[in-house]
């Protein structure tokens, strides 16, 4: 009779509960703080350090990092044109996050909706959608990108769209596979028996169950998209200098890898830390949002404080 035993404690409101669960998971907490900083940088970075990040200083070309006598923006060294790396990384955050988040968001939403339709509608509609996904997948994604960006010209928006399109099949296929499994589950039948419409069944009953998988997928994709963007930038059809992204910084530093590792290392680290944080946070979110698993965090939280 656990019901009676636990009934005494009133449940705190949702946000308080989530915050408590976040405190319980230290890794997730660090990740959340880091991501908050990244987000802040993305918002204020360009207007704050924009000039500094683009001003060339040929005397300080490839200046080594950890020279703490200089101003703090130089602590990570300077790039081939003598621009402070730390400042550049901060300024690049905006473009990077915008492209990556935009692409992931667009591809995840489109892919998920198409996947839901493909999984739940008639075999014919499903076939059409799946073959469409096959076409996208069988086309080398870089080739699509090159063609589209060549035709439309490269802008942040176009880059976002191109990257999004190439990633749609990933979400589509995952969602469809999950839907095919979940639609056979009994609670879906129970909803049908209750007279729920197909729309309601898909969005209220199936989607919430698929969502944790998709969030994990999206965070993994975040890193992929950032790197794909750098590849396009490397080919010269991505973001064009003087605009900067982390990916572009990596590719710019590639030719100096042997004598100035820091050119690529710092932006690489930024990408790694961001994706890792996203991963940790999504992992936490998955548990925190799952009513069956939630006790793990709540128990830990209770023990800690």
């Amino acid at each position, binding site marked *: 009779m656990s*019901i009676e035993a636990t009934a005494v404690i009133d449940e705190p409101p949702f946000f308080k509960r989530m915050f408590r669960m976040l405190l319980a998971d230290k890794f997730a907490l660090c990740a959340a703080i880091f991501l908050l900083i990244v987000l802040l940088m993305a918002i204020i970075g360009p207007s704050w350090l924009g000039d500094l990040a683009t001003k060339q200083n040929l005397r300080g070309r490839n200046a080594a990092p950890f020279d703490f006598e200089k101003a703090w923006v130089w602590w990570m060294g300077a790039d081939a044109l003598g621009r402070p790396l730390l400042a550049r990384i901060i300024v690049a955050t905006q473009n990077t996050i915008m492209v990556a988040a935009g692409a992931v968001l667009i591809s995840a939403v489109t892919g998920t909706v198409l996947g839901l339709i493909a999984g739940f509608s008639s075999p014919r509609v499903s076939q059409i959608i799946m073959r469409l996904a096959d076409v996208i997948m069988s086309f080398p994604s870089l080739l699509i990108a090159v063609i589209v960006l060549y035709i439309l010209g490269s802008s942040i928006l176009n880059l976002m769209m191109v990257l999004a399109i190439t990633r749609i099949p990933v979400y589509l296929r995952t969602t469809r596979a999950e839907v095919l499994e979940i639609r056979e589950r009994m609670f879906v039948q129970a909803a*049908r*028996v209750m*007279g729920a419409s197909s729309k309601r069944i898909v969005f*209220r009953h199936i989607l919430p*169950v698929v969502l944790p998988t998709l969030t994990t997928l999206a965070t993994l994709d975040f890193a992929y998209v950032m790197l794909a963007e750098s590849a396009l930038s490397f080919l010269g059809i991505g973001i064009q200098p003087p605009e900067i992204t982390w990916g572009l910084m990596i590719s710019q530093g590639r030719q100096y890898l042997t004598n100035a590792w820091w050119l690529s290392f710092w932006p690489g680290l930024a990408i790694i830390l961001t994706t890792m944080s996203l991963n940790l946070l999504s992992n936490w979110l998955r548990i925190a949002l799952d*009513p069956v698993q939630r006790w793990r965090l709540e128990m830990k939280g209770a023990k800690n404080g």
Partner: protein
Amino acid sequence: MADHLLEVRNLSVEFHTAVGVVKAVRDMSYHLDRGETLAILGESGSGKSVSSSAIMNLIDMPPGRISSGQILLDGVDLLTMPLSQRREINGRKIAMIFQDPLSHLNPVYTVGWQIREALTTHGTDSAKAQAEALRLLGRVGIPDPGHALDKYPHEFSGGQRQRVAMSRAIIRHPKAFLFDETLSNLDARLREQMRAEIKKLHADLKATSIYVTHDQVEAMTMADKIVVLNAGNIEQVGSPMELYNRPRNLFVAGFIGSPRMNLIEGVEARKRDVATIGIRPEHMAVSVTDGLWKGTVGVAEHLGSDTFCHVHTETAGTLTIRTAGDTMLKHGDTIYLTPDERRMHRFNTEGLAV
């Protein structure tokens, strides 16, 4: 005719499978009057779940196909009805309660949300639904319903989940309930308790129900009328006692009653000019001195209230008999059995009662 709440007429359902078309239900007809409890009784694969799925529009088409028939609810055919209307029927007129309550509740929503959904789907406002949910949870016997509403399905025990499922069904005030093996997953004691509660609820709500089950005890205790299914065919329709006293054929004779009826072929049947005779274990007199059939006791199963003995007879084969719980019979004893000829069932070569 018009008084039948639900009438299934000549329903046939088939499925396309790798080995060809399988007819799951063949030309099935039965009806259900207001306030009546009908049990659909059959073993696995007899088509009992298919027939209830057809009522609730749960058959996937393809591979399934309803090849013929009508399902009339208040005289309106459900099968030819547009989908949107059918949904309304599902939502408001017939409620179904399933076998495994855990898998029938969505794990990511609170129980309260899911009970409310039964109403909000059809446009009731949330606050009203909440009040109704609270009232019903209390009614089906969930302790502290106020807090139970905010719990998730996995936080309940099996019996409680089934109660939740029931309140979700009751909340819509349906005209008919469809129980699909509802108690099969519960343990024996809980099952008995729930059986009694469902019966009480029935009386309170003056409900009309269809009770799909493979458990004849459940069917016998709950139903006013039983439809016995075998391999997609209706074998017999009748009240529990009718089925017990006057089985129409060999299948029903062997199916209803526990332990099952002794069916005897051969010399004893020929003596009575039929192909098979059937005698229930409780309809034989046992004596140690004299009687019609002589035999030795094989296995004696002591249940406390009764003892079932398997007796190997010379002319009638192995028979099961029911004796008193405190019987002294044991393995190897020689006894004599005398069947009650008036309560003997006789079947012809086609297996039909004569």
